């Protein structure tokens, strides 16, 4: 048995795995590559949120990274809470009362806020959404989806390459 020189073996391995490696690196880049945030100047914001069974009004909020946000939570029926994912920020408002708190939006992305006081059957699903800057995660998801389709169709590329090579 003739053993292959190590150089050739490495080349074979590279030839065999290069696309897998390239796709894996592309996937990691799509998911984790840092993206520039738009340079909107941080501002002071005052947001009034009404909580009632089982919704926050408004349910979707958009702010800029760095904003200093004053949240005024008003409960219109029973006791409700406000807990913001990703931030250590929580409020609790009694019926007809207002609770106020301040946080600085120092993390970009989309964050859910949830009622943190059991308020009825749909309480676990009383959810709102805060967007801090652009939603890069959605763009990353779309990019990864496109890559997934390319990878799935990639084997179809091989026969045509072979055909081209075999032409006289």
């Amino acid at each position, binding site marked *: 048995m003739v053993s292959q020189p190590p150089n050739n073996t490495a080349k074979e391995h590279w030839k065999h795995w290069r696309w897998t490696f390239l796709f894996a690196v592309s996937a990691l880049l799509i998911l984790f590559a840092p993206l520039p945030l738009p340079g909107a100047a941080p501002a002071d914001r005052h947001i009034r949120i009404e909580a009632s069974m089982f919704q*926050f009004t408004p349910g979707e909020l958009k702010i800029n990274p760095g904003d200093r946000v004053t949240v005024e939570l008003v409960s219109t029926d029973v006791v409700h809470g406000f807990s913001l994912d990703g931030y250590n920020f929580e409020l609790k408002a009694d019926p007809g009362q207002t609770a106020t708190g301040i946080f600085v939006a120092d993390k970009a992305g*989309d964050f*859910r806020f949830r009622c*943190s006081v059991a308020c009825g059957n*749909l309480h676990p699903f009383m959810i709102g959404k805060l967007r801090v800057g652009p939603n890069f995660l959605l763009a990353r*998801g*779309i990019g990864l989806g496109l890559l997934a389709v390319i990878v799935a169709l990639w084997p179809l590329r091989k026969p045509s390459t072979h055909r081209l090579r075999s032409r006289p």
Partner: protein
Amino acid sequence: MTRLDLTCFPWAKTLLRSRWPQFLLRAITLAGFVFTILAGLFGSVVGSHNFAIIFVWIAWWTALKLFFIPFGGRSWCSICPIPMPGEWLQHGGILQPRGKGIGLDRRWPHFLKGSWLQAGGFLLVGLFGAVTLTSASVTAVVLLAIIVLALVLSLVFERRSFCNYLCPIGGFTGLYAQAGPVEVRVKDADVCAGHSEKTCYSACPWGQYPLALKSSANCGLCMECLRVCPTDNIAVNLRPWGSDLGPKTKHRLDEAFLGLVMLASALVDSAVFLGPWGQLKSAAYAIGSLPWLLFAGVFLVAALGVLPGLYAAAAWAAGRLGPSKTTLQNALAHYSQVLVPLGLMAWIAFTISFAFTKFSYVLAVVSDPLGWGWNLIGMSGTAWVGQATSFSLLLQIVLLAVGLFWASRVARRITESARPAMPLIAFSGIFSLGMLWLLIG
């Protein structure tokens, strides 16, 4: 393709052949099922403090989608307690093989065969889900109704007719078990051909003949065929994921319908339970009101009109672009394989978003299952509001991308070229984008 037959390992074979290990597991699940009904009826009305809500809709529903189906296909069906009482009566004993017991043993009506009723059942789960998933007493009544229905049907019809044709969860697990890594098959087809008694078919509660099994959709992994085979010719294989999906496998129109209902349900559940639209939640909850009728109308239009319409257009285009022209009905059935990985991964992504934030409730209700202020294991106060982490969001993106990759790969394999695969991939892409927007957007 590579297979690993578990019966090659003596300890695994002993475990699978004996009825005792399976009986013990089923006895535990039956006890849990009865306790869940009691907790739902007599426990706290606050869902997050009631064992029925937390164990059924968070612990079990999560385990089914994250563990049982992806790693065991229909393995849940092999320990499901729902058909047990009916089967005991049918078999005339608790550890008996299928035999002469009580019951009319009638055949299930031919016009009701297939997955149509299971898909209808899943639509009902979606329509009434906001109440069923959040009210402990309603959950208990639904579970009680299901076990009584299964019992009554087993006294009238042969074998596991309820599981085969009516159980929505059976439809769900059966559909996605095609992508699962477990199968029961014969070792040597010639041995079966020479065996005239067909003891495996007679013993199978699911009415399957192992020699004819080409898909794991309708095999409940009960192992009865393994136990009664006189020639030790049954294999329990570990196999690559998605082995039942390919150009040569046969699929029916009702599978396509079931797959589409599952996709629509994943979209609607994501919007209702995870979205920021309070009015939608209230509408889904207020059964019988005008907002609920509007919600039900939109849900049914999406599940029975929009999604099937888009899929039909994709299947028609794929059929037209393919080398061999086929009827639309055949195209709808054959290409429905694409819906399997797409739906499975979408449900897993949905579950990650749902279960990761609510899992802290599980230990709390073990400590205080009825919400009566008990503290059995000292953890009744450990439940917290929960939050989605950046890891869980990234994981959902990856899962949806895997679903799209897998569906595109299946489309490529069953159409055998890029052009006819493209409409199916476009359909899969639109669905994945919708899920992505609902979960991440």
